[in-house]
Structure formats: structure tokens, C-alpha cells
């Protein structure tokens, strides 16, 4: 499944379930039962537009110092990493659809901003292009689910996963699907068909389902946080239940995370940003589903 990138031994080239390049720098102890944070980059941490053609074209002209973090997000990442005591190193992973050829600029930006990450996965856009699967260049569902599942397999079972994305794309839906896959609710043909409905090529959808099949069923995801960049009133997350939270600013997210005991008060106070978080308004599903019914391929 994986082989080493000859240019840089830190990175793994992964071809299944989706072409990706990954760097993992930490192995959690088998008994670890604390939180692990998984973040998107584009529009969640950085104010970039990788998903847009214009944004892609800008990449060669951008240096690490040009990249701008969304207000307060760097401080929020520091606070999450440091935990409520301020002296922890809580696991932090990134999954981004950014192509690996900008990894140096992204990781240099992380160095400049002092973002301590334990792993990062890039979508191997060049490989997708080489395969002439042009539709998959901008469709990230299979890539993200695949990357998330590979991480979940690397985590101890008791790890509590907290996810961060944005409403510019389908992060809320993909993360919800991932939560349901982990819990064993969304597997097999239903998982394949749901992905295909979302535009995933069938062979990728099948590979994701194959990977998911081996994962012991367990509720792993504890919350999904969505940065409201497109619809600040949170209308894009209203169809989800209250476990999915929209935040109009990093400051609003920090206040909630502090209430939930995930960051310290001091960490919270360093995060700028006004506004209040928005909780999903759908009724809680009796079977625990995160994914809204209408997004699934067939009825439960």
C-alpha cells in the first residue's frame, strides 16, 4: 500500500485507497485515551483557496511568509496542543487537499507560526492528474475519508477524535460519514454508493470501503467543528445534529472548547474573534447517526 518517497524519506507515498503523500511523526501509546485533533488546512487554518483554480495558480508565487492564517486560528491550534494544563502536547494531525509540491511552503509556515503537528497528509494531485481522473482533482471525499481511515487505524482505539474543517466544502458531511464509518454504521455497499452519489469514482469508493471494513467498530469521533467562512449564520450545518458545531471565528470556537475542558482559560484568552458558535439543529438520531439521512445512498 505504501512506499517511501525517494526524495524525502520522511514522507510515505500512498496509492490506496487514494493517491496521497503522508508524514507521520508520532505514534501514540497503545493506552492513550485522550483527544486527538484532526484539522483541515485550506480555509480552516490558512486563508487560502486551494480548492479554486485561481488559488491553485497563485501557489507558485506564494512564499511561506505570504500565507496568512485565519485570525485567531494559530493561537487556537497552540491552545489545543497545549491542552488545559498548558504544558501538554496533545496529538494534532492535518489532512489537506493541497498538493504535495507545496508541502515545503506549508510546513515552513507551520514552523514560522509554531504549529506543532504530529502528522500531515497531502492529496497527491499530480498522481490523480497522471491517471487522467480529472473529476477527482476537485472532489475530495474519497481522499479525505481514506486519509482519515488510515489515521484512525494508527490511533489507539480509545482515542477521542475532534475534527476541524470549514463550510467552503463538504467537510461537515465527510467528517460525519467518517464518524459513522468508525462506529460501524456506514460500511460496505452503502458506503460505496453514498460516495458515488457524491461524485467519487467507484474504484476509489470501493477501496475506501475495503479499508473501512477492517476498522473495529467504535464511537471515536466526539465533535465536529466547522469554520463558517461561506455562510456565517451557520445555515450549512443546520441539517446536522448538535454534535456538529459551526463557529464564525476562532475566538468563538475557543470559548466553547474551554467550556468543554479541552483548552485552558489562558489559551482561550489568546484567541481573537467575536461571535457565537452555532450548533446543528437536527434531532439526535436514535441510532446515533451523524450523517443526515438525505445524504445517504439508501434508507437506513
Amino acid at each position, binding site marked *: 500500500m505504501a512506499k517511501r518517497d525517494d526524495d524525502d524519506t520522511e514522507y510515505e507515498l500512498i496509492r490506496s485507497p487514494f493517491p496521497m503523500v503522508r508524514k507521520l*511523526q508520532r505514534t501514540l501509546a497503545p493506552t492513550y485515551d485522550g483527544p486527538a485533533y484532526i484539522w483541515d488546512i485550506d480555509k480552516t487554518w490558512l486563508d487560502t483557496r486551494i480548492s479554486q483554480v485561481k488559488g491553485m495558480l497563485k501557489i507558485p508565487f506564494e512564499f511561506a511568509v*505570504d500565507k496568512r492564517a485565519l485570525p485567531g486560528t494559530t493561537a487556537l491550534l497552540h491552545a489545543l496542543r*497545549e491542552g488545559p494544563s498548558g504544558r501538554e502536547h496533545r496529538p494534532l494531525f492535518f489532512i489537506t487537499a493541497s498538493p504535495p509540491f507545496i508541502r515545503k511552503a506549508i510546513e515552513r509556515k507551520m*514552523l*514560522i507560526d509554531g504549529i*506543532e503537528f504530529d502528522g500531515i497528509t497531502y492529496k497527491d494531485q499530480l498522481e490523480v492528474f497522471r491517471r487522467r481522473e480529472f473529476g477527482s482533482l476537485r472532489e475530495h471525499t474519497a481522499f479525505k475519508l481514506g486519509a482519515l481511515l488510515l489515521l484512525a487505524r494508527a490511533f489507539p482505539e480509545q482515542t477521542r477524535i475532534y475534527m476541524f474543517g470549514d463550510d467552503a466544502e463538504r467537510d461537515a458531511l465527510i467528517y460525519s460519514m467518517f464518524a459513522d464509518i468508525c462506529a460501524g454504521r456506514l460500511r460496505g455497499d452503502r458506503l460505496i454508493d453514498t460516495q458515488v452519489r457524491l461524485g467519487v469514482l467507484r474504484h476509489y469508493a470501493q477501496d475506501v470501503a475495503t479499508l473501512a471494513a477492517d476498522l473495529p467498530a467504535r464511537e471515536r469521533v466526539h465533535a465536529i467543528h466547522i469554520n463558517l467562512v461561506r455562510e456565517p449564520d451557520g445555515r450549512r450545518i443546520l441539517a446536522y445534529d448538535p454534535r456538529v458545531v459551526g463557529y464564525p471565528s476562532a475566538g468563538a470556537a475557543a470559548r466553547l472548547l474551554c467550556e468543554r475542558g479541552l483548552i485552558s482559560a489562558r489559551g482561550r484568552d489568546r484567541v481573537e474573534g467575536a461571535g457565537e458558535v452555532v450548533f446543528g439543529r437536527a434531532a439526535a438520531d436514535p441510532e446515533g447517526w451523524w450523517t443526515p439521512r438525505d445524504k445517504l445512498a439508501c434508507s437506513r
Partner: protein
Amino acid sequence: MLSVEQVAQVVSEVTGRIIERVSAPTLGLQAGRARSLAETINETLWWEQDRLSKADPTDEETIADKQFYADIRRQLPRVSEAEQRRLLERIVHRYANEIAGRFSPTFYNLAARVGPPMLSALLTGLSPRRLLERETIPRLEQHVIIEGEIANLGRLRERGTLVVTPTHSSNLDSLVIGFAVHALGLPPLTYGAGLNLFRNPIVGKFMHNLGAYTVDRRKRDPLYKQTLKAYASVSLEFGQDNLFFPGGTRSRSGAIERTLKKGLLGCSVSAYRNNLIRGRAKPDIYVVPCTISYPLVLEASTLIEDWLAEAGKSRYIIVDDEFSRWERWLDFLRGIFSLDLKIHIRFGHALDPFGNEVDGDGASRDPRGRPIDPRGYLEVDGELVEDPIRDAEYTRSLEQRILREFSTENVVHPTHVLAFACFELLRRGRPELDLYRLLGSVGPEQSLAMPEVEREIVALLDELDQRTRADQIRLSTVVGEAAARAEVAELVRAALRSFGTYHAKAVVERRGVRLHVCDAKLLFYYRNHLDGYGLRGAPTLVSSIGSGGARHG
């Protein structure tokens, strides 16, 4: 700054003074007998022949020097003693002329006005996006922090002549001090700069026109060294403020100087004495120690390699270091700007040439703060007397006082703290290894757990905080805040950011929750900024032997 005419007068005065000294039978003594002028000239011929035999034979200066000395050699056997004196004058005059700097007020004003913003624009505008979007450009003064005993420098300058004596770790030092002096509203300083610096076309152009005088360290001829000292002394007597790097050369180890070259330093005593003898209106000389503390040092890799190779003597003049490579300059300076790093220049207490502190009015004070007359140091029975042995003792007192100021005004950056903590953990983990074996044993495959490093940093910060309160060392803002709050996360982030950004290979790199030392030599270099303070019970690792700058005992 001296005008062209005054520089010519200095050259003439220097030549006259050297000839007088060499010709005087008591001062020209060697092995109990007076040396003849011919012997002195022959000695010069020998040293210069030795130097020229190693020089590039196609170099124009080498060819001209060879012709000049061939002419002297041809004439020497046939001439009278009076003519020998003329030959010697020619040699000394040639040396003095080569040493003498020139100063262009127009160039200085242009450089002072346009230089910093241009540099800022160049360094931050290299990103195409920033160029297109015309973002606000950070200013140089935001990155050079000038602090310490600066309030009285202007008044002291009005009452006498300043000799600024900084620590020396980079060839950027003279430019940084030049910027600081201008920012403080002081007139430009003259300073001796190694000939190798003039080889960098742009920097050389600046130096030539901003009053730097040339120090050719390849010239081993004692007559050249005498001329150089005389030049510094006479320029002081002409009221020209000077910049001396008393360590002699850049610190190879990264440690703060703890021994100084007393040759140039002694010029302050001789200039003061000569000023008194000549009844000059403003005879006082004020020595102003200062420290220049960089979070990253441009030439660190070459310097520490040199120190470790114990080739300091043979490579006294490094001509192929990072300073000669433009891309490294740009990397370094862009790092300073993009990472918002600060270079700290801290001025210590002004001193008289005998090492006494002077107050804001320029009056010398004894250790108890009582006013004293420095003239008394040079008098015997009310007469001003030249006594080289006594003066050397005074210079030693001055040296000790400057070193104390260096030690207490040393500013600690996050890179120094992280390097010291990591190095200490590695050293304690392998107590059986000597320094060289320890450095050889450390590779990127080995790592330190971040919590362990953080605990070490907390303990180190506690000691640094105590020493800061006792005025024994200074902390940069980030280190100071970390010490005050016992929170190390921001400090570690700042250090990793610096270590991972400029050097070709990261000094220390974080991977997950472990720190990997990727360049043990550079780790040692940055660690040495805190060497000798006895922090965390660490031994002094940098010895004081040999030339080549800061080798500590």
C-alpha cells in the same frame, strides 16, 4: 569624521611617529642592543617576501608590492643611514596610506537615509506577492533594539572622543553598530576592517566610503602592526571616534569574549596621554563597551567548524565564509525580517582608559563612586610620563572591566536557551565522552523528548531569572516573558522557528513530540553564548587558549 586633509595629516603624523620610534636607540632595542635601520628594513623585507610568496602572483596589488619591495631591496645595500631612513619612511608611509580610510559625507548621508528602507524593501519585497500587493514594509529599526547606557553618549561625545568596543560574532557587526550610532544621533565611527571584507564589492564600497580603515591580517611584519596601532591612536588624538573590536576577530566558538587583544585597546591610554601632553581642549577618551546579540549568526557554521578544527590560527582570515555569499546574506536578513527576530545592541557603562566608570558629565569615578582625576594615572611627580609597562597594566584593568560589561550586558535569545538545554541533556546523558566525541555521537536519528527539554528549560530560566535580577545577564523579551511566567512553549516555538529557517540544515527540528538535533556543531555554537556562567552546573567548555577571538577559560 576626518576630512581628506585631516586623513593626510594623520598619515603624515603616523609616519613621523613610527620613524621617530624606530630610530630612537632606546626603543629600537633588541636583545640588549640597538637595532639598525637596515635591520628593521630587512625584517620588513623578509616578512613581506614571505607573504607575497603565498599571494596570487597575477593579482595587481601583489605585483605592485613585489616591485616596490624589489626596489627597496636593490637600494638598501648601497645607501647611507640618512637614505635608509628615507627608505623606511617610504615603507611606513605606504603602510599608513594603505591603512587610512576615507570618508565621503555624501555617501554617508545617502547610506543613512536610503540604506535602511531600501534594505527593508529588498528583503521583504522578495516575495512576488508582496511586491504586487505593496504591503507595508517592516523597518530596520524594528529589528535592531538599541538599549542600555545610551542616555549619556551624546554628552560624552561632546566632551571627548568615544571608543566603542563591541563583542564580535559576525562581519555584520560593523554595519549594525553603524546603524545604531546613526540612530542615536552620534557622528560616524571609524573602524579597522579586515581586508577580506573589502573584497565583497558592495560592502567594500560602503566601507571604503564610510571611514573604515584597512587591517590586512596577512601582514605579519611588526612594523605594519606598529603603524596600525599608531594610526588608531593618532586618529583618536584627532578627535575621531573609533570602533574597536577588542576580541580581535569574530568569536569562533559563539561564546562571549573573555580575553581581549590589548594592542588596540592600549591606544586609548596613549591617545589620552598624548592629548594631555599636547594640551588638547578635549583630551578625554571614553571607552564604551557594548554587546551585539543575534538570535542567529550569519557565519555560525564556518566559525564553529573553524573553532572545532583548531585551525583558528591558520584560518585567522576566513575569506570563504557565509559573509562572502550573497544568497546566505539574503537568507539571513530575510529570516530576521520574516521571523520578526531582534538583534540586541546593549551599551554598557562608559569607562575611562584605566577602566574607571565615567558619569554623565564625563568625570571618572572610583569603585565607590567618588570622583577621581584620570590624569593622575599618568603622572610621576606631577609630570606626564610614558611608561609602557605601567600602561600595559592599565590596559589590563580596562580589559577586565570591558569583559565584565560584556558578561553582564549579554542578551540571551530563545535559540541560546534551547541550544543550552538540549546540549546539557545530551552531555549529561553521555558523561564518559569528551566534547569532540560527544559532538560526533549526536545525529538526527537521536532525539530528546520535548517534555524533558521543557523541564530543563524551566530550570534554566529560573537560574537566568535570578541572574537577571542580580544584573549579571540580560534576557530578550521572549526569554524574559517565559522566565516570568515559567511558560516555555512560546520560547521553544521561537527557537525552533529560528533554527529551522536560516541554516542550510535545521539546528534542532521537532518531529512529533521529540526534538532531533540535526547539527550538533551549531547546537554547540549557540549553546556557547551561555558558556562560562555556570548555569545548571555546566562546565565551561570553551578554552581560552590561542588567538582567534573568544576562547574562554
